[in-house]
Structures are given as C-alpha cells and as structure tokens.
C-alpha cells in the first residue's frame, strides 16, 4: 500500500483519537484532586500540550539563539558581544539596517494609505466586490512568484535592443531610458522599487481589513452628521477616520512586522546586491552561506528585539479592544 495512504489514515483517525484519549486521561488525573480545585486545574491540563509545543518550538530555540549569538562561528568559544559589535560596525549590515528603515516607513505608509483610500472609494460604488477581489488577488501569490513577475516588469535590455521589460517597453519609446531598474541605487531607487513590489502584494490586505471596519460603522451616525450639515470631507475627517484608527493601527503593526521580516523579494530579485541588502537576507547569508552561527544568531536577535515593541503595541491594543467588548 502507498505509504502516504497509511499516513493519511493515521492522521485522520489517529489525531482525533489521541486528542480524545488525552482529555479522558486528564479527567482520570483530575480524580485525585478535591472537587473544589478541579475547575482551576482543568484548563491548565488542557493547555499543557500547547504550552509544551510552544516551549519546544519557540522558547527553547529563542534561548538557544541568544546563547549562540554570544559564541564564535562554530559555537566553540565564548566571544561576548563581538557578534553584535560586528553587526553595528560592518558596512554591509549597516546598509541592511538603513534599507530596513526604508522598508518599514515606506511599506507602512503606502500599504495603509492605499488600503484606506481604496476601501473608502470602493465603498461608494456598485462593483465594490469585483474591485476589491482584483486588488486583493496579489496577496494570494507567493513572494517568490511575485518577485519573478516583477523581474519581468523591471527587465532591462541595452539601447537599441528590443525591450522585453514592461516598464522599459513603455518608457523607452517616449525617450526615457531604458533604465536598468534593479541596479540603480541612487536615492535607494532599487530598494524603493522592491518595496513597491511588496506594496502591490499587501495593499489588498490593508484594504479588506479597513473595508470590513468601515462596514461596521453605524450608518445612522454618518446620516446624523450629514443632517447636521457636515460635508463629505468633514464626515470622513471627524467621524470615519477616528473610528477607523484602531483598525489602521492593527494593519500598520502587521505591515511593520512584515517589512522587518522582508526576505523573499530581496532574495529573488537582487539577493541584496546593488545596496539592497536587508537584515533577514544578511541573516540567511551568514547562517547558510558563511556557516557562521554566531553572527547569524546575533542578527536574528537584533531582528527579534526590533520586532518586540511592535508586537507589544499590537497585543496591548488587542487587549484594550477585548476590554471594550
């Protein structure tokens, strides 16, 4: 029999069986406790497997990475903070840091901005769902595939040759270019173009979330303000926007984390060459090319520390919303 079939049977039958078995086992364990304590202990027993997984796959590796970041290339000697000193002095990683700042600022502004604009505009037209589907679609494409698509958009051929890249095919006949987009690092043009690829993918994400929040605003509120003589801009500025702020913050924090983690687009389109390096790709290169676990781990820790405040804000806001409910 095909081994995959056996795996499928094991998964379909085995997993629920194990779950039911576990719950029955916890009830057996609970018998030894007095009735009064049972409701307090039960949730912890139910949570235990999830907590165990979380520890093995998240907490333990994080601690391991932090320890590794204080060791040398092969993990044999303690080197103190040398790897971090390297990170903050090497011209390559500093340029990666600078590019990540561009990624965070630009991607967030563009994604939230376009997302809000499109959500508000399509809210007023009849073909709303069609328009939203089209803009949302790129999010379903993997980063690697999107990068390949945009490599064709940005493709460059020398003067005189037929331009195969979409943008150069448009620009060249009107006398601009051909422009070798991916190699122009003046004013970080190529990094900005990479951010635009990500914006193309993520605008749909911002749009649908903001659009959903828009739908949940009570129309009576808007009607009342219009009756009171507010024009459309005032309605948007003083009613809609304040009500959308929590949603915008959620979208922004999610996008900031995405920008900090940016890897696939850079890896596929430039591999960090031509001054487009980002932290995640630098980490990949140290770990899997240079085989330097110390430096790779140090980069991972820096990246994690950069993400923690954003996560904290996100969780805070989430808890505040829960409290309102």
């Amino acid at each position, binding site marked *: 029999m095909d081994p995959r079939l056996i795996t499928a049977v094991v998964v379909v039958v085995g997993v629920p069986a194990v779950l039911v078995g576990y719950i029955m086992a916890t009830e057996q364990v609970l018998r030894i406790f007095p009735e009064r304590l049972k409701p307090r202990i039960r949730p912890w027993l139910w949570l235990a497997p999830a907590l165990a997984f979380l520890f093995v796959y998240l907490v333990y590796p994080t601690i391991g990475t932090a320890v590794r970041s204080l060791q*040398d290339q092969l993990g044999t000697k303690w080197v103190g903070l040398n790897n971090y000193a390297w990170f903050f002095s090497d011209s390559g990683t500093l340029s990666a840091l600078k590019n990540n700042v561009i990624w965070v600022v630009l991607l967030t502004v563009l994604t939230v901005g376009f997302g809000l604009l499109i959500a508000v505009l399509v809210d007023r037209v009849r073909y709303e769902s069609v328009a939203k589907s089209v803009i949302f679609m790129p999010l379903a494409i993997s980063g690697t595939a999107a990068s390949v698509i945009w490599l064709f958009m940005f493709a*460059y051929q020398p003067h005189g040759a037929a331009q195969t890249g979409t943008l150069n095919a448009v620009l060249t006949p009107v006398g601009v270019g051909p422009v*070798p987009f991916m*190699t122009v690092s003046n004013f970080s043009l190529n990094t900005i173009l990479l951010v635009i690829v990500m914006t193309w993918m993520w605008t749909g994400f911002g749009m*649908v979330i903001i659009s959903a929040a828009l739908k949940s605003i009570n129309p009576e509120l808007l009607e009342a303000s219009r009756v009171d003589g507010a024009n459309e801009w005032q309605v948007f500025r003083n009613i809609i926007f304040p009500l959308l702020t929590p949603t915008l913050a959620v979208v922004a924090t999610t996008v900031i984390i995405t920008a900090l983690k940016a890897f696939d687009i850079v890896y596929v389109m430039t591999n960090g060459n*031509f001054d487009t390096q980002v932290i995640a790709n630098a980490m990949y290169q140290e770990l899997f*090319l240079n085989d330097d676990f110390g430096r790779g781990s140090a980069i991972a820790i820096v990246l994690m520390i950069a993400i923690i405040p954003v996560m904290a804000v996100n969780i805070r806001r989430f808890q505040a919303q829960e409290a309102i409910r």
Partner: protein
Amino acid sequence: MIQGRSHGIRIGTAVVALVLVAGACSSSATSAPTAAPATAAPASAAAAASVAGVASAAPAPSLSASAVAAAQAYAATLGKPGGSVSVLAVWGGPELAEFLAMVKPFEDATGITVNYTGTRDETAVLTTGIASGQLPDIAGLPGPAQMQQYAAAGKLQDLSTMLDMSAYTSQTPSSLVQLGTVSGKLVGVFLDVSAKGQIWYDPKIVGDLASNPPATWTDLQTLITQDKSKAQAPWCFSVASGAASGWPATDVLESFVLHTQGPDYYNNWWQGKVKWTDPGMKADWQQLGQMVAESYGGANQDLTANFANAGDPLFTTPPGCLFLHQASFITGLGAFANEQKLTDYNFFPFPAITPQYANAVEGAGDLFGAFHNTPQAAELMKYLVSSQAQTLFVAPGEFLSANKGVANYPNPMNQKLGAILSGATSFVFDASDQMPTPMQTAFYQGLLKYIQYPDQLDSILQNLDSTQASSYTTH
C-alpha cells in the same frame, strides 16, 4: 443596513482565511530558497527550482549497447551485498537522466538500488545534515572549501578504504587526486570536470579560429580591432545567476590572474597569502574592467542578464558581440543549445599573456564524497570512478571525465576540451570555489560592485583584504 454589516463580517472571516493561506504560501516559499552554490551554478538556469528526485522528467539518453555492456560487465565484478545506497547531488533534468543512465547497469548487475535526491541548495542541506546527523551515503560536495570543512568535522569517509586506490591514482590526473585529499586522506573524487576560461565565437562572423587561434592576448586585441565593425561590441559578459550572481566574473578574473601571474601566485591567492590590494592583482581587475567597458550593453547589461544567456548576442543579426569567455558547460545553455557545434560556434583556449604560463588550465568539476562507509556505498564509489561508467557519463556530450582512460568523446569539440584538460602543464582548480565561503561571497559582491562602479576599485580591494584577514581563521 443590517445586511451591510453581516456582509462586512463575512468578508472579514474570508480575509482571515485567505491571509492564513497566503501566509502559508509565502512562508513555505521563503523556507526553501534555492541558493545556487558556485559549482551548482552552471545548470541553475535550466531548473532554478528543480524538484527533488524527478527522474522521469527528462528522457534517458541513448547509449551505445557495447558501452553499456562493458559497464555492466565491470559492475558484475563488484560485490553484491544487495540493499540500497542514497545519493544527494545538484542534478535535475537532462543531467540527472544522464547520471541515472550511468548507474542503471550498476543497479542491474549488483542488485543495489540507488536512491537519488536532487537539490540546488547543497550547502544548506549538508550544513544542516551535519548538525542533525541526517546525511546521505554519497553526496556531491559544493566545492573544495566545503569538502575541507566537512573533512575537518570528521564527517567524510576515507575513500582509500572504499576504492581500489592503485587503480584510482593511475587513472586520475595527480592534481585532481591532490585536490580531493585532506591531511593525507582521500575524501573527494571528481565525477566530471569542466575546462574553464575558453573563448567562444561564431566562425561565420570571425572566421575559423580553431586551427589558428590567437596565440597571445595581444594577438586577440589585434583581431578585435580588425573585426570591430562586425559586431556592436567585442565582448559578451553577463554575471547574473540568482543568489550566486558574480561567479562568471570570478572566472574571468581567475583567467587573467592565472595567465598573468602563474599558477603559484594563483594558488597563494585563493589560500589567502596574496593580498587583494597587491599591484599585480589590481592590474588583473583592471583588465577585467577593460573587458566590461568593451562589453555588449555595458555594465547594466552585464549585471542584469543571466549568465546562461550571455552568449545569445553572438548569434543575433547583426551580432551583439564577437567573443564570450566561459567554461565548456556553456554549450548546453542559452542560445548555444540550439546552435550547431563547430559550424555555428567554436572555441579557442584563453590566449597566453605571460608566455611561460601559456599551458596553464583552470578547471572545475563535481566533487563527490561519502558520509557512510557501507558496502553498497563502497561498490557504487568504485563503479562511479571507473572508466567504464565514466565512458557512459560523457557519451551524451554534456560532461567531460576526470578519468584519463576515457578518450571516446562523442564529438571533436569535446575531444579537444578533454585533450586540453589532460594535456595541461599545470592544472588549477576554480579559485573562488576554494576560498572560505565568506571570502567567496565577498569576492562575488566585490566584482558586482566593481562592474557597477569601476572608480571604486581601491576601496573594494581594501574591503576584500579585511574579509581575507578575518575569514581564513575562525573568529
């Protein structure tokens, strides 16, 4: 109104589901990137994201029955322990079909099953494999530097206990035996080799140069001046190759270093004993810069066009360029694959610069080592390096053999390439492949930067010096 609201909630739910799907897609894409190590680069254009073990993807090459019978007869003399042996390498597509056709007689004669896994990300797979202990029996190694590293970690088997050493050393050029030896133990063997630093051209444009090639670099410059009007630029030069972009330029620089400074300087250089800021080294970089300046489309084309298509402008009307510097494997890539050997394209060896180094040749190849010394692995290793198996491997015309006993190449061009390799007065291996990986990465990036900003040469070389200072010892 109420309808509008529930509509919003439905969309919200759908969004969450889609986001999860999209997230899963993109994370699976990022977790398995296909880094092409330098030695794997030649074929990476053909299948940038080849799937592991697709043996049926390409048709098996047709091989002469007598050669197959000879290989099978040799395999019959080996032990028959049964069982299986696992092999990991970079090949996919036609190259994989040729490899599998080579091992078929072995499987038939010995009853040992060969389980092949293909990956373009050999370095990452083996690095994590060494950490976790999940290693194949036999594996293609990314390059000599990684081989040294795995051997130092005690993971590679001493092949002298697996091979018939007297047969191996008598059939293999001593320089290749030397390259596979780490502290007195043979740990790597070459299943195939390629001749780097060949100059390719279209005989219909520049005439037949094969019988009367330019003997010196000066002669070649004269030829270029004379034929200048026949193409838009003298040279084709493209260095893009995904994550390994830059390696084609390292080959060009290596040709200049080898032919200007000689093999000793060359070997000292990759061993970290010659500074990048050395005046001789800088002069060679400037030679490369000259080639870039005279290249079709200039630096922007060089940096953005894939190396596999580097030679395509040779065959356009009017031609984009007259000459292309590349290794022997280019004949299977880009427009070359659709043109006729000898009539549409031909090659001559890199011309002499310093006369006494005229016959120095740079080569590269696929190194193989064993991680487990099982009887099955030992029998397969013996078979793979034998002249009978190698004869099958070179028959389709893709590979050149490291075995001196293989002479029956399928066409005159491969015969000539094979003769260049076996007739070299001194044979050196690809320098960038032998450097420690951080040095190699910095070398690639330095060349890309130089092609883009030729005026920054001094600072680029100083940067490489500082990488050199830190990467040859652990820090």
